């Protein structure tokens, strides 16, 4: 929309206040123990100011940056996935009348929560939410609980200035600056986009307005006396310079032009034995992945068996029980399970949903206790299949 403003850091509290006034539960990056996680933001002081992160294969460390940056880290340890798609939730509750032929009643557990404002969501994680919109709410059957939570979300994205070594959003085309619109639906990606500029004593947020709703919030901010001033095209150029520099810092790459066909052609690759010798099938990668959506159900009943709840919980294609049917699991070996995971992310996801299932956030690399790197495995498969361009796999 080309509407550029400058927000002074002291105005963040006002922004959070305006969102609260409008009934949003504000969720963003916050410190918990030795990690930045996605949590409740009551005030700007809940943000991880001055904290940076170091993320690389099987490495996650926080450090003091020695400056005042509010968003001087790559991405929270967990994405915003659980905000709309919690790790466990009740689908329905039932009661059985034991004396009456097991007659039972079932009540659907409806979502009754205030709408969420995502504050400081990264481009990779925002793209992952859009992917979930397609997977969980854009098909013939939808996840009603997801839609209930996702409806009316206000998005204050923060462009990424400090990617980690594990990041590869630039190569996936998902960041570090978020696309203006969801490439699938054309809907605006964000209501407001902030880019934090921090150089030579100059600390400001360049604020870009993405929707009318965003413009209303900016107007309310200005009316409240918050330090918002008009910006220029030069300010937007500064913002783009920040994300261009962030993209240039990234070294990990996926050859997106070929990876779909590479994976499809690699079902019988000897590489699976190699990766299976390292993979512990611990499920970490699927738990931190912002797009992984597989779930199972659990029936929880009391001792009488007359009161029961059906729970929907995250599941992982790395667990043996995941593919179990009478007689045994269809994916018994670790190599079959790793093949399923990476093939789904980088190939069959595109057949199913029209986009790749990886946003380049790098969490699977960071949190793999064996340091298995999805970009390295994809590159190796590309080399071995002979389908990838040599330049993309060096």
């Amino acid at each position, binding site marked *: 929309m080309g509407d550029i403003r400058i927000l002074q850091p002291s105005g963040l509290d006002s922004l959070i206040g305006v969102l609260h006034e409008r009934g949003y539960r504000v969720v963003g990056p916050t410190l918990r123990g030795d990690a930045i996680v996605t949590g409740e933001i009551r005030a700007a002081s809940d943000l991880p100011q001055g904290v940076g992160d170091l993320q690389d294969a099987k490495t996650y460390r926080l450090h003091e940056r020695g400056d005042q940056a509010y968003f001087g880290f790559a991405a929270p340890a967990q994405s915003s996935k659980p905000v709309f798609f919690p790790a466990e939730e009740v*689908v*329905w509750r*039932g009661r*059985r009348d034991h004396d009456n*032929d*097991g*007659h*039972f009643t*079932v009540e*659907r557990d409806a979502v009754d929560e205030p709408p969420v404002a995502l504050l400081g969501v990264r481009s990779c994680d925002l793209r992952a939410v859009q992917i979930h*919109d*397609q997977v*969980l*709410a*854009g*098909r*013939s*059957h*939808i*996840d*009603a609980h997801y*839609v*209930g939570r*996702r*409806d*009316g979300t206000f998005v204050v994205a923060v462009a990424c200035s400090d990617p980690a070594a594990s990041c590869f959003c630039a190569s996936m085309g998902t960041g570090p600056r978020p696309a203006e619109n969801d490439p699938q*639906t054309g*809907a605006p990606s964000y209501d407001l986009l902030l880019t934090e500029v921090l150089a030579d004593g100059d600390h400001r947020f360049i604020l870009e307005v993405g929707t009318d709703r965003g413009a209303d919030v900016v107007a309310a901010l200005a009316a409240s006396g918050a330090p918002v001033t008009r910006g220029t095209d030069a300010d937007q150029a500064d913002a783009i310079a920040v994300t261009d520099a962030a993209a240039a810092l990234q070294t990990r790459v996926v050859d997106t032009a070929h990876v779909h066909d590479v994976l499809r052609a690699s*079902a*019988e690759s000897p590489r699976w034995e190699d990766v299976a010798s390292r993979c512990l099938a611990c499920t970490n990668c699927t738990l931190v992945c912002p797009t992984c*959506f*597989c*779930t*199972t*159900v659990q*029936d929880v*009943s009391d001792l009488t*068996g*007359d009161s*029961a709840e*059906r729970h929907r919980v995250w*599941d992982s*294609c790395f667990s043996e029980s*995941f*593919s*179990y*049917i*009478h007689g045994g699991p*269809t*994916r*018994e*070996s670790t*190599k*079959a399970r790793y093949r*399923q995971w990476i*093939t*789904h992310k980088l190939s*069959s996801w595109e*057949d*199913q949903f029209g986009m790749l299932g990886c946003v380049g956030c790098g969490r699977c690399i960071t949190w793999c206790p064996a340091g298995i790197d999805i970009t390295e495995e994809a590159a190796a498969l590309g080399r071995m299949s002979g389908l990838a361009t040599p330049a993309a796999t060096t």
Partner: protein
Amino acid sequence: MSTAAAETRIAGADDPMVPRRYAITRVRQDTRDTFTLLLDPVDGDPLTFKAGQFTMLHAFGVGEVPISISGDPRNPAPLEHTIRNVGAVTRALVNAHPGTEIGVRGPFGTSWDAADAAGHDVVFVTGGIGLAPLRPAILDVLAERDRYGKVLLLYGSRTPDDILYGDEMRRWADLNDVNVQMTVDNAPYGYQGKVGFVTELITRAGFDPRRAWAFVCGPEVMMRSAASALAGRGLPAHRIRLSMERSMKCGIGLCGHCQLRDLFICVDGPVLDYARLEPLMNVREL
């Protein structure tokens, strides 16, 4: 996303994750470990379904299993499911006394669409309890028997005692001009019938491969060799349909368990043609 449309979809339809209540009217024992559940909807509204579709059956407080509907699509009450007693949920279901209420979600998935074979020979190939998901398609064909050419039912079971719907298969042979051929893997001393795998029946069965359709249901290893034998007789892959089995937790394509590369078996299947399945079935543990 278009949230307005999503809201309408939630408000306008029943949540497919919430079961409807059905009362068990009868549990019929078919073989040593296989039972047929006859169910009546508590709300009186019968479940309309297409041959080949499945439901999720819920034993209260125990769990849920995907089971193909084995009844007649033209006569959906009572609702019929044939179940092997192999796990906690199936045990709770087959041991329930008449009158017990269970939960039913669905119907889900694709159909055999046996009517596509009208005007041609029809070959049903099945093993063990695989006859149950095929039975609605067989009944569809027999309801309009004169629209089809030869109808063959090639049936394999482990032992003579495991033969499912034996009386009914005899009626189909006697009254409906169905060429029923049976074989067993293992037979007791003195057994008069054929011993061997069902695939062996395919090579000798009398049908015209240039104009036949085949509908195959059984264990995956049996379907793989049966489809291969049918293709070997000259049946094109798009005229061979199979019903796939995978782990399923939702039935609506959301839980991810039933994926076979790009397919969600619960939504894209369970009935799929061999042209689509052949490259997937020949990769181990895909």
